[in-house]
């Protein structure tokens, strides 16, 4: 039995980074404020002291520069782990991500590849200023060549991050910052992996399958508990948006015949639509009701005085599940 530590999600990020930095000299952590400051969320705390500034690198304030140079570094055989300080500030690098990170393997017929892991805190719920709270996982999921991972527990965070860094392809690793510090979990000291591409059934149920990820997993479980005795809810945490574990999604749906998707991103062209379409294509004859989407609104993320209203919370999730079942 290996030793464990009781870690928060953000501590599990750091523990995962430390493990991979120690394991492989080609791994470098780079970004704005990741070095001396240990990251604005302290996700890289002390790594600079431990590994030095050739491995944990404070860069100029330039997202396109960070990702663009990381493309070159990765193509040359390194494994960069760039941090985007907030996912809302990833857009200057969007050109590099979609034009090059995602498709260098394809464009060079396999000669070059980009084994990088782009980490970014994402999502709302921490009373942050404008542009700090968006959930844009759909952008990256829509892009072929990228893998997209969103953990919801400290254990998964460390294991998925290790898988991402070791993965031969680029991974966008979105960290739900609302739950960075809201709970702890026992996490093994040694390094381990949790496979990319596998969803986790967090709660078994017979009446409806509810699909969620990241910070939405906990309010969804709470709604499921609220409905105990009334509706038997199965909760599936997708963990990977791309490649999506459609097998687990479809299996669960075939069992329950009803589904809801919970995400904090806006509804239109969000991943709820992708999941609903997959269900239609693969299990239409099991379908008892339309798939209910319980999501953020098709609006910009509001300033924080109204963010609680924007985010799907147990009341909205509970009602959405009821509607899907009572159809």
């Amino acid at each position, binding site marked *: 039995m290996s030793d464990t530590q009781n870690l928060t999600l953000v501590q599990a990020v750091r523990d995962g980074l430390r493990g991979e930095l120690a394991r492989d000299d080609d791994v470098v952590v780079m970004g*704005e*404020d990741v*070095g*001396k*400051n*240990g990251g*604005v969320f302290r996700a890289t705390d002390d790594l600079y002291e431990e590994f030095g500034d050739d491995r944990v690198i*404070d*860069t*100029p*304030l*330039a*997202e*396109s*520069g960070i990702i663009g140079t990381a493309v070159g570094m990765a193509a040359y055989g390194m494994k960069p782990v760039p941090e985007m300080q907030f996912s*809302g*500030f990833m*857009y*200057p690098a969007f050109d590099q991500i979609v034009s090059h990170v995602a498709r260098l393997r394809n464009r060079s017929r396999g000669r070059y590849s980009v084994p990088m892991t782009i980490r970014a805190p994402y999502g709302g*719920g921490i*009373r*942050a*200023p*404008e*542009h*700090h709270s968006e959930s844009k996982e759909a952008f990256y999921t829509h892009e072929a060549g990228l893998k997209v991972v969103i953990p919801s527990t400290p254990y998964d965070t460390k294991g998925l991050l290790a898988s991402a860094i070791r993965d031969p392809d680029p991974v966008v690793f979105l960290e739900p910052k609302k739950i960075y510090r809201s709970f702890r979990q026992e996490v093994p000291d040694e390094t381990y992996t949790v496979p990319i591409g596998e969803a986790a059934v967090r709660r078994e149920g017979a009446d409806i399958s509810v699909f969620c990820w990241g910070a939405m997993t906990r309010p969804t479980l709470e709604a499921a508990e609220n409905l105990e005795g009334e509706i038997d809810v199965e909760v599936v945490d997708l963990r990977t948006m791309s490649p999506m574990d459609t097998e687990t999604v479809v299996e669960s749906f075939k069992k329950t015949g009803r589904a809801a998707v919970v995400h904090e991103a806006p*509804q*239109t062209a969000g991943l709820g639509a992708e999941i609903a379409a997959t269900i239609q294509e693969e299990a239409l004859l099991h379908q008892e009701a339309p798939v209910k989407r319980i999501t953020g*609104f*098709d*609006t*910009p993320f*509001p*300033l*924080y*005085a*109204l*963010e*609680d*209203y*924007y985010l799907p*919370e*147990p*009341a*909205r999730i*509970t*009602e959405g599940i009821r509607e899907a079942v009572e159809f």
Partner: protein
Amino acid sequence: MTRNLFDRAPDDQYRILDTDGRVVDGASVPDLSDEEFVELYEYMKLARHFDQRAVSLQRQGRMGTYPPLSGQEGAQVGSALALRDEDWLIPSYREHAAALVHGQPLKDTLLYWMGNEAGSEIPEDVNVFTPAVPIASQIPHATGLAWAAKLKGDDAAFLGYFGDGATSEGDFHEGLNFAGVFNTPNVFFCNNNQWAISVPRERQTAAKTIAQKATAYGFEGIQIDGMDPLAVYKATTEALEKARNPQEGEMRPTLIEAVQYRFGAHTTADDPTVYREEGEVEEWKAKDPIPRLEKFLRNTGRLDDERVADIETAVEERVADAIADAESEPRPEPSEIFDNVYAEKPPRLQEQEEWFEQVREKYGDDAMLED
């Protein structure tokens, strides 16, 4: 008028007042009335007090994350006072004092940082652009605004602010490059406060100065003492004048690098003790723009104890009133989330709003709010 002000090496820092408030050899003070000199001081005092109160409100949980400006009053007030009403101010997220000088109500600045959309409503007759949180993203906007004014034949000038960190972004390069190519009436004002959160200026560029970058875009750059409000005022005034009325062969845009320091944290979410030395802060405090201007005004008979005390009282009252006003603003209605997304609300958004209101009614407001 001669414009030899910009005729100097980019690292030949322009200054009028030394740190003791004395006029340095060979410098001439700007052509301001006594009242205008005192107004400059008043605004700086107002900015300092506002800033201290804002940080304290944040600590008390009455405001969200807030970016402090103390140390930068000379740069913000000195530059914004150089604007005419018809000129435009394009801020980053830290120009509370500059925006105030150009007509943005204090109450709105408070509301914005209190997370209330009501604070984003800029009065129609105030030419202040919406604050930009994504670093450097406002720089091309400043160029575009100025370009449009030039195409329409208006003679306004455009003063855009950003930090030293912003000069690393592509948007900085693209914005200044366009300004040079289209010779737009812009003044690009870099608040070089030495740090972009924890990353020092030396990690943003290997160039000796930021001012010298202007050369690459084909226009003038000047480094000034950003904690000398008179130098700031003078340099900005001349740069704005050049933007509006360039002389034969002169380019309109100017890059001003105002060398300064922010005394406090980057934002209230930041802890600067992790990355900078206390001694450094003390060194810069000796250059504090407020006592520096105060000494000059006292030495030249424009200010005395009584006037200073009156100003302090007036400043405290004004800030207290703005806070009371902002805090008595009703909590925004959730329906505001759905407003101003489009000129006309599309049916799908209407449906989302209606469903949300149904759930809210059925489950109650408390169920929807985090405790």
